[in-house]
C-alpha cells in the first residue's frame, strides 16, 4: 500500500432504501492534495464526504492514515477528519467563540474544562479567518459570510490533517466566496489534505490541485483540472453544451455554457473581423449552429481565441504583416464558398485592408456598423472609400445588437 496516501477508499457503496447513492467508489488521496469533488446535484458528493467522516455507515473500506475508520472511536476519528457542513442552521444564540471552541470537543474528557491552550487555538483560528471582532457576537445575528468564516474557524480548531468541506460557499456573496478557498489553499500548501464538494466549476479549477468528477454515484473522471474539465466530460455529465478554455485575460480555466442546439444549419457564413470585433458575432453564429469560417486575423488577435474556443476554421497572418497573397486567396475562397459574409465593426489599417477588398466577392454581405467608419479608418481615407462602395451592395447595414434579425 502506498503510504503517501492519507485516504484510501476501496469499493465503497452506499444506499438509502435500496436506492444506490454511491456505487463502487475507489479513491486515494495524497497528503496535502486539494481535491475538488464536482458533479451535478445528486451525484453523491455530499454523501461521499459524509462517508469519509463516518456519518454514513458503509460496508466499503475507508482508511485514514492506514487505519479503517470503523476501528476508530468517534472522538479519535474527529481528531483526524473534520467536516464543514453545507448548511448548519444554528438557532440558538451562541457567541462565536463558543462555537469555535466546539472544535476542541474531541480533545476534551467529559469533565475537563477548556484549557488556556484550547482558547488560544480557537482565538488563533478566529484571527486567521478574520472573525476576532465577532468573538462575543451571537451566531444568530451574523451575516452568511461571517457565519461561514466562524464555522470554518471551528473546523480549523479541530486541528485535523484531513478537512472536508461541503459546498462551503454555496450561499455567499462573491466577496466571501473565494475567501474560504484561499484559506483552504493555504492550508493545503502546509500539508493539510482538503477534499471539497464544489458547485462552482471555475472556482474548483482555480484552487484545486485535483478534481474528481462524479455522476450518479460514480467517479467518471479524476485528474488535474485541465484533464477533468473538458468540454466532452461536462457535456456528458451535465447534459449541456460547455466549452472549456483558458481565459486569455485571467489565464484561468473558464467555462462557456450555452443552450444545446441539436440541428446544425447547412448555411455557410464567413466572418471578416479582427481587433476583437468578431468574438461576439462568432459566439452568436456558433450558438445558432451555422457552418462558420473567419479571417483574416493578425497573430495575437483576441478574435483568434474565440475562433479556437468555438472550433471555427480561421485564417491567421504573421505578426505585424500585411495580409499575404496566399492568405488573401484563401480568404476569397472562403468568401466565395459562403452563403453570407459578415463584415464586423473592426478598425482598418494597411495590414488588413485586403479583408475589406475581399468583401466584394460576397454573395450576400451584412455590415455591422456600431461606430462610424471614419473613426475606424487608419489608412487616410482609402478604407472609407472601399467601405462606402461595399455599403451600396450590402443587403443590410446594422448594429451588432440587431444581428439576430438578419440570421
Amino acid at each position: 500500500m502506498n503510504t503517501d496516501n492519507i485516504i484510501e477508499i476501496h469499493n465503497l457503496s452506499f444506499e438509502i432504501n435500496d436506492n444506490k447513492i454511491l456505487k463502487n467508489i475507489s479513491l486515494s488521496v495524497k497528503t496535502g492534495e486539494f481535491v475538488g469533488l464536482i458533479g451535478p446535484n445528486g451525484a453523491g458528493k455530499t454523501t461521499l464526504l459524509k462517508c469519509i467522516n463516518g456519518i454514513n455507515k458503509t460496508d466499503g473500506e475507508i482508511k485514514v492514515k492506514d487505519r479503517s475508520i470503523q476501528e476508530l472511536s468517534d472522538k479519535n476519528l474527529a481528531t483526524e477528519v473534520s467536516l464543514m457542513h453545507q448548511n448548519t442552521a444554528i438557532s440558538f444564540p451562541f457567541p462565536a467563540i463558543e462555537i469555535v471552541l466546539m472544535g476542541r470537543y474531541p480533545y476534551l474528557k467529559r469533565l475537563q474544562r477548556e484549557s488556556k491552550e484550547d482558547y488560544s487555538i480557537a482565538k488563533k483560528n478566529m484571527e486567521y479567518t478574520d472573525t476576532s471582532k465577532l468573538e462575543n457576537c451571537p451566531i444568530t445575528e451574523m451575516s452568511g459570510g461571517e457565519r461561514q468564516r466562524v464555522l470554518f474557524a471551528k473546523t480549523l480548531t479541530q486541528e485535523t490533517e484531513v478537512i472536508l468541506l461541503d459546498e462551503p460557499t454555496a450561499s455567499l456573496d462573491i466577496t466571501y466566496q473565494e475567501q474560504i478557498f484561499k484559506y483552504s489553499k493555504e492550508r493545503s500548501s502546509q500539508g493539510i489534505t482538503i477534499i471539497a464538494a464544489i458547485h462552482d466549476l471555475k472556482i474548483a479549477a482555480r484552487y484545486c490541485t485535483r478534481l474528481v468528477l462524479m455522476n450518479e454515484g460514480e467517479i467518471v473522471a479524476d485528474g488535474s483540472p485541465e484533464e477533468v474539465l473538458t468540454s466532452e466530460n461536462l457535456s456528458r455529465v451535465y447534459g449541456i453544451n460547455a466549452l472549456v478554455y483558458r481565459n486569455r485575460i485571467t489565464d484561468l480555466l473558464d467555462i462557456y455554457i450555452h443552450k444545446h442546439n441539436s440541428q446544425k444549419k447547412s448555411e455557410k457564413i464567413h466572418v471578416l473581423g479582427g481587433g476583437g470585433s468578431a468574438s461576439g458575432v462568432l459566439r452568436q453564429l456558433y450558438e445558432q449552429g451555422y457552418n462558420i469560417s473567419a479571417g483574416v486575423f493578425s497573430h495575437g488577435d483576441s478574435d483568434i481565441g474565440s475562433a479556437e474556443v468555438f472550433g471555427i476554421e480561421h485564417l491567421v497572418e504573421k505578426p505585424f504583416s500585411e495580409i499575404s497573397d496566399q492568405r488573401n486567396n484563401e480568404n476569397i475562397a472562403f468568401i466565395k464558398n459562403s452563403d453570407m459574409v459578415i463584415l464586423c465593426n473592426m478598425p482598418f489599417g494597411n495590414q488588413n485592408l485586403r479583408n475589406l477588398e475581399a468583401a466584394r466577392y460576397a454573395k450576400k454581405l451584412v455590415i455591422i456598423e456600431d461606430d462610424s467608419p471614419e473613426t475606424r479608418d487608419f489608412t487616410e481615407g482609402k478604407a472609407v472609400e472601399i467601405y462606402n462602395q461595399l455599403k451600396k451592395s450590402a443587403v443590410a447595414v446594422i448594429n451588432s445588437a440587431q444581428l439576430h434579425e438578419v440570421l
Partner: protein
Amino acid sequence: MSAIETINLRNWFLEVKVTKATSSIKLMIHRFGIIPAMIVTLLVVMVAGTAIGAVYVPFFDTLRIILKNIGLLPNSTFIEGQEPIIFLVRFPRVLVAALAGTALAASGTVMQGMFRNPMADPGLLGISSGAGLGAVLVIKLGLAAVSIFFMPLFAFAGAFLAIFIVYMLSYRKGKVPVLTLILSGIAISTFLGALTNIVLTLSYDYQVKEFLFWSTGGLDGRRWEHVQLVFLPIIISVALMFVFSRDLNVLLMGEEEAKSVGLNAGRTRTILLILISIATASAVCVSGAISFVGLIVPHIMRLIVGPNHKILLPTSAIGGAIFLVVCDLISRVVVIPFELGVGIITALLGAPYFLYLLLRSKKEGGMVL
C-alpha cells in the same frame, strides 16, 4: 388607533421591558455570580414557603425550627405546636416542591437542547400520561389507603412503561429519529389518556375527585417519606445531566455537526432520555402532573444566561425549584381556607407566557430564542 397598532405598541413595550429587565439582571449576574445568588434565593423562598400558611410562623422562627431539627441549632424551644407544623408538615412539602421543580426544569432544559426544539417538554414523551394511568389504577383499586407508597410507585411504573414503549416504537437500526419519537410520544399519551378515562368512567365519584386532585398536581400531604422516596433519584439524575452540558451544546448544532466533532448523538440521546425519565417520573409520582414548569423555566433562564448548557442547566434546575416552591405557596394562600392544585397555578402562569413566546416566535418568523 387601530387594533393592530395597539397590539404592536404593546408588543413593543413588552420587548423594551424584557430587554431592560434582562440587561439589569445580566449586570447583577456579572457582579455576583448567578448560581450563588439563586441558591440564596431558593433558601429564602423555601423558608418563606414553610413559614407562610394558615398558621403563620415568623420567618426567623421557621428558620430556627428547621435548623434545630436538622441538628444545626440545638437547645431551642418554640411555641407548642409550631415545631410539628413546620418540620413534619410544611417543610417536607416544600422540599418535595423544590425537588420536583428541579427535576422538571432540568429535564425540560435537556429535552429542548437535545431535540433542538424550544417547545419540547417532559410531558411530550408520554411520561405524564403513563404516571396518570398508574395513579388512577391505585385510586380505583383502593390501594392509596393501604400505603402512601402505592401511588408514587404505580405512577413511577406507569411513567417508565410509557417512555419505554415510546422509545421502542421509535428505535430503528440504532437510531432514534426525533420526529418519530415525538409523534410516538403523542400517540402513546393519547392512548394512555383514553385508558385512564375508561378507568375513571368505571369509578365512583369520590374516586374521580381524588384523581382530579392528583392530576392537577397536588402537594398537600407530602411527608418525609415522599422526600426519601425521590431525593436520591432526582439529585443523582439531575447531577448526571450536568455532566452532559458540553454534549448538549454540541447537540444544539445538529446531529451531523455533532458527529463531525466526535459526539455520538444517538448514544448521548439515549442516556439523556433515561436520565430525563428517572427525574420526571420521580417528580410526577410525588407531585402529580404539574404542567409548564419544564417548558417555561428553561425559557426564562435562557433569556437571562443564554443558551450555554454549562450555566443554563444548573440555573434552570435551581430556577425550577424556586418557581415551584413559589407556585405552591401561592396555591396555598390565594383562596384560604381552600387549596388549589399547584398545577393550576403553574398552568395559569405558564399558559400566558407560552402564548407570549408563540406570538414572539411568529413575529420573528422562526424559533423562539
